[in-house]
C-alpha cells in the first residue's frame, strides 16, 4: 500500500483534481434529500413470494443509516473494502450505501464467481468484511476464510438455513441493523453525523474490469464520478426523473450501480427487484418499467422467444404477425436510410393487432427509453424492436467512465454508430485510431495499480483501448478492441469480434469464435442456440436427445453452413469464414471460455480447442476430441467426442 498522505493534502489534491465538485454533494446526501422531500414515495420494490414488498425513501434512508451505525460498531473503518456478493437484493443495496456512509468502499462480486476468484479479490483488496446474500454465498466465504483468516465478519441477508445456527463470525443483516438502530436511538446526533461524513471525493464503489486478459483490475468510482455521469446523461435526456427501473443485472456490473443507485438517488427512480433470475421476464411484465436496459444478447434472446412463440401459434395470429412485422421492419429500415415513411392505417392497425400486444407480452408496454450497450447489436434485432415501437438506442461506455460516455439521440438512430458524447464529455481519436475520453465521469486511476493507471490515463484522457472513428456528422463508430486487430498469414487485417458478432446475429448461432491469426484461412468454432436450433430440429424431424447430439447432426451442419455463407456474402474479400465446427457444448464462464459478461477469452479457447483448430486448418472431416469437463464441485474429467468438421461452400 502507498503511505497515507496527510488528510489536508488529500483534500487539497482532490479539490484540485475536480474543481467542479462540491464536497457535500454525494450519493448519501441525495438519499437524505429524497427522504426529506418525498418521504412516502416508493423507492424500491422487491418481489417476495409472489407479491411486491415496497420500501419508501424513509425506509431506505433508515435501513442505510441503521446498517451503517451497526457496521461501525463492528469495527469498519474509513477506507476499508467491504465485499458484497449476491443477486440483486434490497439489503445488498442498503449494505453498499451503508458502507459508503462510513467512507468504507463496497466491492461487489458476481454471485456465480467461484471460490478462488472471490478469494483472489479479497486478498488483493485486503477485505475484512463481507455482505453475502444467502447460505450459498456464506458457505463460499467460509471456504475462503479457511485460507484467508483476516476475514472478520460475514453478514448474510437471507436467513434461510442460517438463522439460529450461524457459524462463528457470521451475523444476520437484520442483527446488525438492530444494533445500529439501538445506537441511533442512544445517540441522537449520530444520524446527522453519519450523513455528514462522506465527501464527493470518496470512493463510492469499487468495480472490477472483466479480466479478459489477466487478473481483474479494481476500478474505484467516486461519488462525484457517478453523479457527474448521471447528470451528463440526464442533461442529454437519457434519464428522466421518477423512472420505473428494473434492477435485474448483476450488482457487480457498473451499469447496475449507475442505474439502480446513482441515477436512482439523483433522479428518484423506483427500483424494482425481481424474485429470482428465472422469474425476471415475468416480473418485468408485472412492473412494466419506463426505462429498460438489456445487453444485445438479452434483446436477441427476447426476439428468439417471440419467434419461437410465433412459429407455434395458430393461423390468424401468425398471418397477422407475418403481415405486419415485415412492414414495420421495412419502414424502420427506410428510416435508417434517411427516408422517413408515413405511419398510415397499416401502422395504426399493426399497433392494435401486433406491436402493442407484443410489447405488452414482453413487459415493455410502458418503456419510454430502451437501451443497449456492451457490444454490437444485430441489425435484425435492432430493427425488430424499433419496428415494435420501442425507441431502442445504443450507447457506449466502460466501467472506467461509469458506462456513460456516448449515446444516440432519439433523432440520430443508426446501426453502425453509437451516437455522440454526452454533454460534459470530451472525445477524440488518437493517431492509432484509439478512442480517448475526458470528463468528470472518468475515474482517477485503478485501485493500487499505478502502472495500469499510467497506461490508461494520459493527461486526463482515458485511453479506452477501443478502435473507433468519428463520422463527419460527429457520431462515433466503435470498430473493436485496438488490441484485437489481428493479421492472417497473408497480412490481411481483421477484428475477430466483428465477424463473430455478425455470426451471432443469426438466431441459430449463440456463440462463435473466429480464429485465423497467422493462418491461411479463417475458421469458426460455433455454439448453436439450443432453443432456436432445437425448435428447428423438431419442425424438420431431426431427432436428438442432448445439446451435443443436436449439434453434430448433418442437417444442423447444413443449417449453420447456410447461416455462415450468408454472413460471408457481406464480408470483405479474404475475410470469409472457410471452415467451421459445431461445438458439443456452449461456451461457459464456469469453464473459463467466456467472462461472466460473456466476452470470449481467446487464449483459453486457442489452448483448449487447439486440436480442433489444427484439424480444421488441415482440412480434416472429423476429429476425435478429448473434451475436458469441470464438474460443479470443481473436479475435472474428460470425455471423448467425435466432432464433425465442415467447409463453407464458396468461401473466398
Amino acid at each position, binding site marked *: 500500500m502507498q503511505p497515507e498522505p496527510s488528510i489536508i493534502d488529500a483534500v487539497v489534491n482532490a479539490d484540485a483534481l475536480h474543481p467542479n465538485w462540491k464536497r457535500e454533494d454525494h450519493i448519501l446526501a441525495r438519499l437524505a434529500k429524497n427522504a426529506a422531500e418525498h418521504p412516502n414515495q416508493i423507492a424500491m420494490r422487491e418481489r417476495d413470494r409472489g407479491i411486491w414488498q415496497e420500501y419508501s425513501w424513509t425506509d431506505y434512508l433508515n435501513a442505510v443509516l441503521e446498517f451503517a451505525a451497526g457496521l461501525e460498531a463492528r469495527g469498519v473503518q474509513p477506507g476499508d473494502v467491504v465485499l458484497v456478493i449476491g443477486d440483486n437484493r434490497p439489503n445488498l443495496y442498503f449494505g453498499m450505501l451503508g458502507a459508503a456512509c462510513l467512507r468504507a468502499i463496497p466491492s461487489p462480486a458476481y454471485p456465480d464467481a467461484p471460490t478462488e476468484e472471490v478469494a483472489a479479490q479479497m486478498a488483493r483488496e485486503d477485505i475484512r468484511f463481507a455482505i453475502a446474500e444467502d447460505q450459498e454465498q456464506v458457505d463460499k466465504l467460509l471456504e475462503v476464510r479457511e485460507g484467508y483468516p483476516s476475514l472478520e465478519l460475514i453478514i448474510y441477508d437471507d436467513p434461510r438455513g442460517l438463522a439460529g445456527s450461524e457459524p462463528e463470525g457470521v451475523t444476520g443483516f437484520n442483527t446488525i441493523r438492530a444494533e445500529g438502530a439501538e445506537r441511533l436511538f442512544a445517540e441522537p446526533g449520530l444520524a446527522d453525523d453519519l450523513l455528514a461524513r462522506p465527501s464527493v471525493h470518496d470512493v463510492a464503489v469499487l468495480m472490477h474490469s472483466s479480466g479478459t486478459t489477466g487478473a481483474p483490475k479494481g476500478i474505484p468510482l467516486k461519488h462525484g464520478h457517478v453523479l457527474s455521469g448521471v447528470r451528463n446523461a440526464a442533461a442529454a435526456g437519457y434519464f428522466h426523473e421518477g423512472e420505473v427501473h428494473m434492477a435485474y443485472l448483476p450488482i457487480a456490473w457498473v451499469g447496475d450501480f449507475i442505474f439502480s443507485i446513482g441515477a436512482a438517488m439523483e433522479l428518484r427512480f423506483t427500483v424494482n427487484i425481481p424474485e429470482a433470475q428465472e422469474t425476471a421476464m415475468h416480473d418485468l411484465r408485472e412492473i412494466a418499467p419506463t426505462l429498460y436496459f438489456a445487453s444485445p444478447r438479452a434483446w436477441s434472446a427476447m426476439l428468439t422467444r417471440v419467434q419461437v412463440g410465433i412459429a407455434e401459434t395458430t393461423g390468424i395470429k401468425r398471418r397477422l404477425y407475418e403481415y405486419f412485422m415485415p412492414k414495420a421492419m421495412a419502414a424502420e429500415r427506410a428510416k435508417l436510410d434517411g427516408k422517413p415513411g408515413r405511419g398510415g392505417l397499416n401502422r395504426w392497425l399493426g399497433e392494435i*393487432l401486433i406491436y402493442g400486444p407484443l410489447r405488452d407480452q414482453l413487459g415493455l408496454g410502458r418503456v419510454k427509453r430502451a437501451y443497449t450497450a456492451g457490444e454490437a447489436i444485430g441489425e435484425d434485432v435492432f430493427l425488430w424492436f424499433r419496428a415494435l415501437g420501442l425507441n431502442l438506442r445504443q450507447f457506449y461506455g466502460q466501467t472506467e467512465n461509469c458506462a456513460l460516455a456516448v449515446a444516440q439521440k432519439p433523432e440520430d438512430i443508426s446501426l453502425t454508430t453509437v451516437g455522440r458524447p454526452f454533454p460534459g464529455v470530451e472525445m477524440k481519436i488518437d493517431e492509432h485510431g484509439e478512442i480517448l475520453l475526458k470528463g468528470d465521469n472518468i475515474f482517477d486511476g485503478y485501485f493500487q495499480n499505478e502502472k495500469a493507471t499510467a497506461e490508461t490515463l494520459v493527461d486526463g484522457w482515458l485511453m479506452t483501448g477501443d478502435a473507433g472513428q468519428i463520422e463527419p456528422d460527429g457520431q462515433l463508430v466503435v470498430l473493436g478492441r485496438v488490441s484485437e486487430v489481428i493479421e492472417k498469414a497473408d497480412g490481411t487485417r481483421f477484428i475477430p469480434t466483428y465477424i463473430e458478432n455478425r455470426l451471432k446475429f443469426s438466431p441459430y448461432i449463440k456463440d462463435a469464435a473466429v480464429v485465423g491469426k497467422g493462418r491461411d484461412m479463417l475458421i469458426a468454432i460455433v455454439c448453436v442456440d439450443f432453443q432456436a436450433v432445437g425448435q428447428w430440429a423438431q419442425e424438420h424431424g431431426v431427432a436428438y436427445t442432448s445439446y451435443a447430439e443436436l449439434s453434430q447432426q448433418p442437417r444442423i451442419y447444413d443449417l449453420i453452413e447456410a447461416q455462415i455463407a450468408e454472413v460471408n456474402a457481406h464480408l470483405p474479400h479474404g475475410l470469409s469464414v472457410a471452415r467451421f465446427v459445431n461445438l458439443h457444448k456452449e461456451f461457459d464462464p464456469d469453464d473459463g471460455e467466456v467472462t461472466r459478461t460473456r466476452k470470449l477469452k481467446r487464449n483459453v479457447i486457442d489452448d483448449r480447442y487447439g486440436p480442433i483448430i489444427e484439424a480444421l486448418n488441415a482440412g480434416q472431416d472429423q476429429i476425435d476430441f478429448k473434451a475436458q469437463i469441470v464438474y460443479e464441485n470443481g473436479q475435472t474429467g474428460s470425455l471423448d467426442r467425435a466432432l464433425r468438421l465442415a467447409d463453407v461452400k464458396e468461401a473466398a
Partner: protein
Amino acid sequence: MFYRLSGTFHTNYQADRKLWKIPADRWLVLTVFALAVLAPFLVSPLYLGSYVLPWIIWSAAALSLTLLMGMAGQLHFGFAAVMAIGAYSSIHLVRAGVPFEIALLLSGIIAAVIGAVFGAAALRVKGLYLVMATLAMQYLVDWVVVNVPWISGGAHATLRTPAVSFLFMDISSLASRYWLALAWAALITVFYLNVKRTSFGRSLVAIRDKDFAAAVIGVDPFKTKLMAFFTSSFLGGVSGAILAFCYYRAVTPEQFGFNVSIQLVAMVLVGGLGSVIGSYLGAGFVLLAPIFLTNLIAGLAASGWVPVSQNFLSHLPLVIYGAMIIGFLLFEPLGLAKIYDNIRKYFLVWPFRHARS
C-alpha cells in the same frame, strides 16, 4: 389483443386475490353492468319487459341452481317447485301485511327449509336416484299448490301480486321492477363469485368431486350437502318471489311446472356447470334463442325462403333449437361459459398460442 397485463402487480395478498385483476376484464364487467343499469333508457319497454327482464330473473334462478348443481354436484330436477314456494310464500306474506323486504327474506327461508328437507334425501342417494327424489319434490309441491285452495286459490285460479314498495320506492313501473330484479341478480352474482373463494365454497367443491374423499379430508358431507340445498333453495325462493313480483305479477301453478324445472337444468347445463357467466349465457340462450329462431324462420318463410308446409314451419324453430343445444354440448361439453373462456384465452395470450413464462 385487448388484454394488457403489463403493469399489473400486487403489493399484498388481498390485492392478488381480487376478482377481476386484469384491467380489460374490469372494464368489460363495468361496461356490461353500466349497460344493464341503463337498459330502461336504451331498450324499448316492449323489449325490456319481454326479453331483458325475464333474462335477468332467470339468470338469477340459474345462478341459484348452479350453486347446487355446478358447485356441490347435487342434481336437482325440481327447482321450479322451490321457486314456486318462494313465489307463493311472498305473495301470502305481503297479503298478510308483512313488509315486502321482509317477505322476500322470509319466502327465501321457507323455500330453503322445505328445499333442505327434500335435499336430505341426497344424504342417502346419488345421481339418478337423487333426480328421482327431486322429481318427487316437484310433483308433491305441484300437487299441494294446486289442491290446497288456501295457497293457490283453486286449481285454475290466478293470484295477483299486491302493489308493493321496496325500501320506500314504489316498484309498480317497469323500470323500477327491472332495477329491483337487476339488483337481486347482481347481489347473487357477487355472492356466488365470493362463495367460490370461501371455505364453504371449497367444501362444496370437495363434495362434488368425491363425497367420501371429502369426508376423509375433514369436510362433513351431512352438513355440507344440507347447507348446499339450504343456500341454493334460499336463493331460488327469493328468485321465485322476484319473478312473481317483478315479472309475472299474477301467478298460476302452471308457471312453476315440471317443464320449467327442465328448462332451468338446461340453462345450467348449456351455460356451463358452476359458472357465473354461463348462467347468464345459458338463461339467455334457453329463453331467447327459441324466440329469435321463431322470428327468423317466420321472416324467412314470409319471403319464401323456406319451402315447407305451414304445419312443419311451426316446429322448425324447435328442431333447430334442439339441434343447437346438442351441437353446443357436443362441440364444448363444458357449455357456453367454456366457449367464452376459450375466446377470452385466445385473446389473452395474443399473439402467442399459450401463456409464456
